[in-house]
Each structure stands twice: as structure tokens, then as C-alpha cells.
């Protein structure tokens, strides 16, 4: 990895070197999961930092998203006299697509940038080098714990966000119409089955992995210099967001082939 940074490559050679570098980083990450000495305490701390600390942001955004979706959908449904279908369409769109993608994008903004900036500043202040020269394994302590924590926490945040989004929808429906809490949630739950929930849940695992991996890769491989901390954080958000859409496109295709033919 250092070899790539040391050489001044340009154009497609630089791009290819970067791809190769990411493959090596990916292999090293996987190898380190199984090499023993897993940092449990750091992993739990990261789960708390990444999961618990993002819950408020995900909750508020999902609540607003649920309410806004209902307010946007209602006029069209009224035209067709199908207001009673609002909980059903909200649930399906929220569970299948909006919930996972919005939550993942929020996490890309919050988590990928914070991991990129944290590891980037550790690189600049030689903390990662210090870990490495002490004979410890910085990949095990910094990278494995963070990527696994994000991979686990993003799906959980998505589930929480989906439920809160449904509450937002309930509130929005009751602005103009009147529906009981019990009837609303009965309609919501009746609208979905496992073929809606499972593919969406699996998709969020990949989203989580992409966010963690990109954040760690950008931070761990940032150049030495204070400006590179900002660059690492920024490119982590941009790349992770892009990956979320690419993964989403792939997952929709696979899900369509498997479940909705």
C-alpha cells in the first residue's frame, strides 16, 4: 500500500493502482477478522458510537420522511379515491426503498465522514504509524472493528428508521383524515411480507459494509498533511454515497429476478 503512495502515478495507472490497493485492503481486512485477537471492547465502543449516536438523526429524518411521503402521495390518491391505500403504499415504499437508502445516505454523511476524518487525523499525527511500529496491528484495532460495527449497525438503524417513518406517516394522515392507530398499523403490517423485508434488510448489510469500508480505506490511506484529513472525510462521503446507489441498483435487479417476476 505504501508503495502506491510513494510513487507519483498519473491517469489510468493511478486509477488501476487505487483499485489494486483497495483489493489488498479488502483482503487484509478479511484476513484480520479470522486471525484472532479480536478487539471486542473497541468493537462494542464503535457500535455505541456509530449506532446509538446516529439514532436521533436517523429517527428525526425517518419521521419527517414518512410524514412528507404521505403529504406528497395524498393528492394523487385522493384523485383516484384511494386514500385508504396510503398506509399500504407508504409501508411498501418505506420498507423496500426509501428507508434503507435514506438511512444509508445519512449514515454515509455522518459515519463515513467521521471515520475518514478520525483515521485521517490519526495518520497525519502518526498515531497509526506508532501502532504499527509498536508491533500492534492497527488494522485489527481500527479497521476491523469499525467496518463490522457499521455493517451491523446500519441494518438496525434502518429497521428503527422504518418504524419511526411509519409513525411519521400516521401523524401526517391524521392531519387531514382520521384513522385509528390500530387500523393504521394493521394496514401497514398486512401490506408487507418477508419478500419485502428480507431483500431490503440484506441490502442494508451491504450498504453498511460499503460505508465502513470506504470510510476506513480513505482515512487509513490519507496522505500526510492537515488538508488530507478534509479530503479523506469528503471523498469518504462522496464515494460511500455513490456506492450506496450502485449497490441499490444491483440489489433491485437481483430482488426483481428472485421475488417479483
Amino acid at each position, binding site marked *: 500500500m*505504501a508503495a502506491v503512495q*510513494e510513487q507519483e502515478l498519473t491517469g489510468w495507472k493511478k486509477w488501476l493502482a487505487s483499485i489494486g490497493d483497495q483489493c489488498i485492503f479488502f483482503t487484509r481486512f478479511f484476513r484480520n477478522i479470522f486471525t484472532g485477537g479480536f478487539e471486542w471492547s473497541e468493537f462494542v465502543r464503535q457500535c455505541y458510537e456509530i449506532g446509538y449516536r446516529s439514532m436521533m438523526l436517523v429517527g428525526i429524518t425517518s419521521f419527517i420522511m414518512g410524514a412528507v411521503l404521505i403529504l406528497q402521495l395524498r393528492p394523487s390518491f385522493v384523485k383516484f379515491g384511494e386514500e385508504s391505500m396510503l398506509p399500504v403504499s407508504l409501508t411498501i415504499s418505506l420498507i423496500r426503498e426509501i428507508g434503507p437508502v435514506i438511512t444509508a445516505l445519512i449514515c454515509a454523511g455522518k459515519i463515513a465522514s467521521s471515520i475518514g476524518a478520525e483515521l485521517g487525523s490519526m495518520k497525519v*499525527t*502518526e498515531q497509526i504509524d*506508532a501502532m504499527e511500529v509498536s508491533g500492534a496491528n492497527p488494522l485489527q*484495532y481500527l479497521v476491523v472493528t469499525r467496518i463490522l460495527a457499521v455493517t451491523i449497525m446500519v441494518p438496525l438503524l434502518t429497521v428503527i428508521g422504518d418504524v419511526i417513518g411509519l409513525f411519521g406517516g400516521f401523524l401526517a394522515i391524521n392531519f387531514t383524515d382520521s384513522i385509528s392507530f390500530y387500523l393504521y398499523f394493521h394496514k401497514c403490517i398486512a401490506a408487507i411480507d418477508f419478500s419485502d423485508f428480507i431483500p431490503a434488510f440484506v441490502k442494508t448489510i451491504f450498504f453498511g459494509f460499503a460505508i465502513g469500508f470506504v470510510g476506513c480505506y480513505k482515512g487509513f490511506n490519507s496522505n500526510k498533511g492537515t488538508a488530507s484529513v478534509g479530503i479523506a472525510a469528503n471523498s469518504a462521503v462522496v464515494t460511500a454515497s455513490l456506492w450506496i446507489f450502485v449497490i441499490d441498483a444491483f440489489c433491485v435487479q437481483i430482488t426483481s429476478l428472485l421475488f417479483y417476476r
Partner: protein
Amino acid sequence: MRFVFKSPAYYFIGSMEAVKEIKKEAVKAKNEVVISINNLKKSFGKNEVLTDITMDVHRGENVVVMGRSGEGKSVTIECIVGLLTPDGGSLKVFGDEVAKMSDKELRQLRMKIGFLFQSGALFDSMTVRENLEFPLTRVLKITEQHELDARVKEVLEGVGLLDAVDKMPADLSGGMRKRIGLARTLIIKPEIMLYDEPTTGLDPITSREISELILDMQKKYKTTSVIITHDMECARITADRVLIMDDGKYIAEGTFESLHKSKNEIVKAFFKDIS
């Protein structure tokens, strides 16, 4: 069984031989080359940093490397510890070629080398205690809390900062951070210490204290040291031998006093302000 009588002279000569053997071993150990660098080359793109570096560092020796900024002094010690891979030449530590080591061998080598970074490189999300325990629990795999406490206490007493044990790095001054950084590297009892500008950015009094601390720690832990510095006072206090670097290679070598009298223009420029 046949009993063979041996005179007292036999035993006396025998013990004398043993003493001679021990002395010989001690001299041999003292002359043992722990770091051997030959024709080392390192470039970053088109920028040739190290053009031809050759040096030997003997066990127990304090070698100070001086040179202008950007000459590749830090690059040399980063190659020694395997953070950078040389482009050419040979670099052996304890007789083994660093560039050819596997990850496992490199990790084992690093357990014998302490590296003090210019900034101290303390892990800023951890307290001083956690910083010091980090290499003990991860590298030496020590899990007994009483042993961890004893080691932490020993090194903190050594650097005179026992009170700072529960502080965060952000609460420490520059000099304190360097001391804690030194304590963290010494806690695994390395055989070789590499110092990257240990006194940079410190006031003259603290610089002197750090230089004396380096010397004290070297005597206490019997380490071999390579010290990269611009600080002449630090060099004077710590050096057994000084190497002057220019244009990617060493141009002068000797004791601090001998180089002080050197006729070489570049060497004279370094010692200009020394009375």
C-alpha cells in the same frame, strides 16, 4: 569410579579462563553490529531522498544523525523499522534483511524496536494509562492487571510523570507528550530506540531535560539508539557518535568534539553557533 585429584591451581586457572570468556563475550556484545546499512537508496517519485547511505550501529551505542530538513534522516529510520521499503541497498537489523521479512517477522522485529515520533504520536482517544497499556496488552499479551500497573508505574516514574496517568493527551504540554511517548516506547523494553527529532518544538530547558532523559533511559535500559535531531545541545548530550548527512548521503562521522573541529564547510555550518 576413579577419583582424580586436581590441584587448587587447576581450579584457579579454570575460573580465570571463565572470567576471560565472559569479558570476551562482553566485548563481542559491545562490538556487535545491530543495525547495518549498506548503499541504501530511497526515492519518492523522481525525488531521490537517500542516494547512498552506509552505516553500522553497534550494541549500546548512541548515534546521532544530523542534516538539513528534507535530507531523508527520518526516511532512514522509517526504513529501519519497516515503515518504508528501500529501493536499493541492504538494511539489516540483528543480521536480518528488513525488506525480505514476512509480516510476522517484521512484527517480531518491531517488538525489539522503540520509535519515538516527533509529535509523540499519543493515541488521543485514550488516557495516558491506556496509551501505555496498549503495547503491553496487544504486543506482549500481558493480561494481569497488577503487572500492567507495575510496568506503567515504573515507566511513568522514569519519565517523572506519575501524576499524569489518568490524563488525556490533549491535557498535556508538548514536553509532557514527548515524555509519555518515550515512556510508551520504553514500556516494552526495546533493544533499539529510534528517536525522530525528540526535542523539536520545545523550549531550551525542556529540550535539555528530554535529552538528559534519553541518556538516562539509555543507561537504565541499555538500549542502542539512533537519534535524528537538529538540536546541537541534544546531540552534545546524547551522542557517542555523530553522522552528518548531506545530499542523501553521510559526509562526516565522528564524536561531537571531533566534528566540532572539522574543516568541512557543511559540518562547520552546523557547529557555527557552538562555543
